[in-house]
């Protein structure tokens, strides 16, 4: 767009340089993407303004790495027989992004509470951008967290068993799952009366899914009913798929199951989040 020193005013009082950024008006999708980018940028700036948040969102996973590597690890025999740290890391990755998705709920609940979402509703932006912007910013944060944990894992002896491309496929698996989880927690964030409540609502949902899973131990020691749950619930399935990709082993079935879970979560929770956003904001 050209910049004009003097803005002329049309009959309706709209200055001429209020014309849309794209001369052709742009497509709805084009604007939705541009708006998402604006919201992502805002959320990422906020993350950098509160470095404590980024720091502590990696501290907890790191403590889990150290706890299971050095405290419990000696007493746990990895199913399959390899070094326990190699078994452990897939569980840590998935656990970290799962707990990290709570911040999607907290962030949205906070924006709602402060009236920011209400102001967004009076702007000509794409409705969806508030949610896609938030979940995408959290995806960026998860990339950072996964990177840090990979580094810490390497320091305590984690080695990629199945080659770098397979490891990266595992990382993609984790990030896709994290993104799907963010939409689920967006629903919680938009349903909670405030951000503190969003946080305490999220925890009891995640806790059984994270710990009744093959994250830290093989499921063959679990009682039958629990084993069935641990094996087939989404976090369990995604851990198995990630582990197969990172450590090696048969990948087709677990990865397919994990992809189906991610798709299922997105199909259910994305529309629910949008609906809840319309109702609350």
């Amino acid at each position, binding site marked *: *767009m050209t*910049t004009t020193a003097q*803005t002329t*005013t049309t009959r*309706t*009082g*709209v*200055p001429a*340089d*209020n014309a*849309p*950024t794209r001369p052709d008006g*742009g497509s709805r999708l084009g*604007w939705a993407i*541009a*708006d998402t980018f*604006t*919201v992502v*940028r*805002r959320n990422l*700036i*906020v993350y950098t*303004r*509160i470095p404590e948040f980024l720091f502590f969102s990696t501290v907890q996973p790191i403590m889990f790495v150290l706890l299971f590597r050095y405290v419990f690890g000696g007493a746990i025999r990895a199913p399959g027989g390899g070094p326990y740290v190699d078994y452990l890391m897939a569980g840590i990755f998935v656990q970290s992004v799962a707990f990290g998705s709570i911040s999607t709920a907290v962030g949205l609940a906070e924006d*709602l*509470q*402060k*009236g*920011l979402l*209400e*102001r*967004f*509703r*009076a*702007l*000509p*932006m794409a409705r969806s*951008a508030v949610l896609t912007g938030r979940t995408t910013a959290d995806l960026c944060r998860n990339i950072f967290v996964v990177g840090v944990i990979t580094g810490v894992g390497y320091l305590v002896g984690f080695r990629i068993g199945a080659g770098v491309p397979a490891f990266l496929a595992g990382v993609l698996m984790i990030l896709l799952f994290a993104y799907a989880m963010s939409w689920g927690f967006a629903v919680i964030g938009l349903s909670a*009366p*405030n951000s503190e409540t969003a946080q305490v609502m999220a925890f009891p949902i995640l806790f059984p899914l994270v710990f009744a899973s093959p994250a830290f131990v093989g499921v063959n020691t679990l009682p039958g009913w629990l084993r069935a749950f641990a094996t087939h619930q989404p976090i369990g399935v995604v851990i198995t798929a990630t582990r197969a990709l990172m450590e090696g082993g048969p990948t087709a079935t677990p990865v397919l199951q994990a992809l189906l879970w991610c798709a299922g979560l997105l199909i259910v929770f994305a529309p629910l989040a949008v609906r809840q956003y319309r109702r*609350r904001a």
Partner: protein
Amino acid sequence: MSDAIEATNLEKTFGGTVRALDGVSFTVEEGTVFGLLGPNGAGKTTAVRILTTIVRPDAGDARVLGHDVVSDAGRVRSLIGLAGQYAAVDENLTGRENIFMVGRLNHLARDVCARRATELLERFGLSDAGDRTLKTYSGGMRRRLDLAAALVARPAVLFLDEPTTGLDLRSRNDLWEMIEGLVDGGTTVLLTTQYLEEADRLARRIAVVDHGRVISEGTPAQLKADLGATVLDVGLPDPASAANAAEILAKVGTKAPTIDGSSIELPVDDGPRAAMEALRMLDAHSMTPTTFVLREPSLDDVFLALTGKRTDVEDDPDAATDNGGRGRGRGRAGDRAGAATGGAR
């Protein structure tokens, strides 16, 4: 001139029980300031939320520059700006980043957003603070920044929801001057306020709202003509002498005095003359007032004149839906303090 805003029989009920709007109608002429005046819970904010497309009315319809706020909400959003009592800006961003963000979400080009952010920061006296996060801003600075952000897309119609509530006198005067500057530039403004003085100073027309209804509409002069220009508050040692004094002073006022405990309120026309006369009459009866104050009429007086009762401070249906009840603790005392101390005209 055509109407920039037309609201017709707007109704809105929250949670099935709280009737926030009960058939509100008004029109705002293009290029003028219109004041919605009323106490907490009158429905002012709900009216603004409907007109800015944030919530849909249950019944009735509303148009902004000819566009329906429900069926053509997207178009309306591109023509309006909104700034409010709860400066809805992101406190983790700098002033400049906030304006830039709102500009981008209005689909302005980056260079336009950047240029306007600089202009607006300067115009609102925030140049030095522009690159600090809002956490470091005072209440008055946040409101100014909120107003600046609302103006980034140069809206033809601006909604100001209690723009000065809770501000100190100086910040309030600053903000008033800025709003007056906008109107000179041709912007249509819908202002909600609890302060008669604010509506009087800024608005060409005022609608008084109570319990979701417009109970009076007119120019500030018409409204004040109903009230008497000035109010004389006289305090006496006890309720009995107050009743006595009310009888004595009745003929000084334009209306019958009202007694509240041991004090009297009397609407009068010519303040100083009425004050002298009142003192003479009290003296003639050997009565000495404990307090004696001449003041501008407040919202409370408007309500007393219009409804025969005081504004009742009750739960605000707007606040009730405001996600977590950001409290609106200002009631009658706040209105009166605002009007009494704000006589800087």
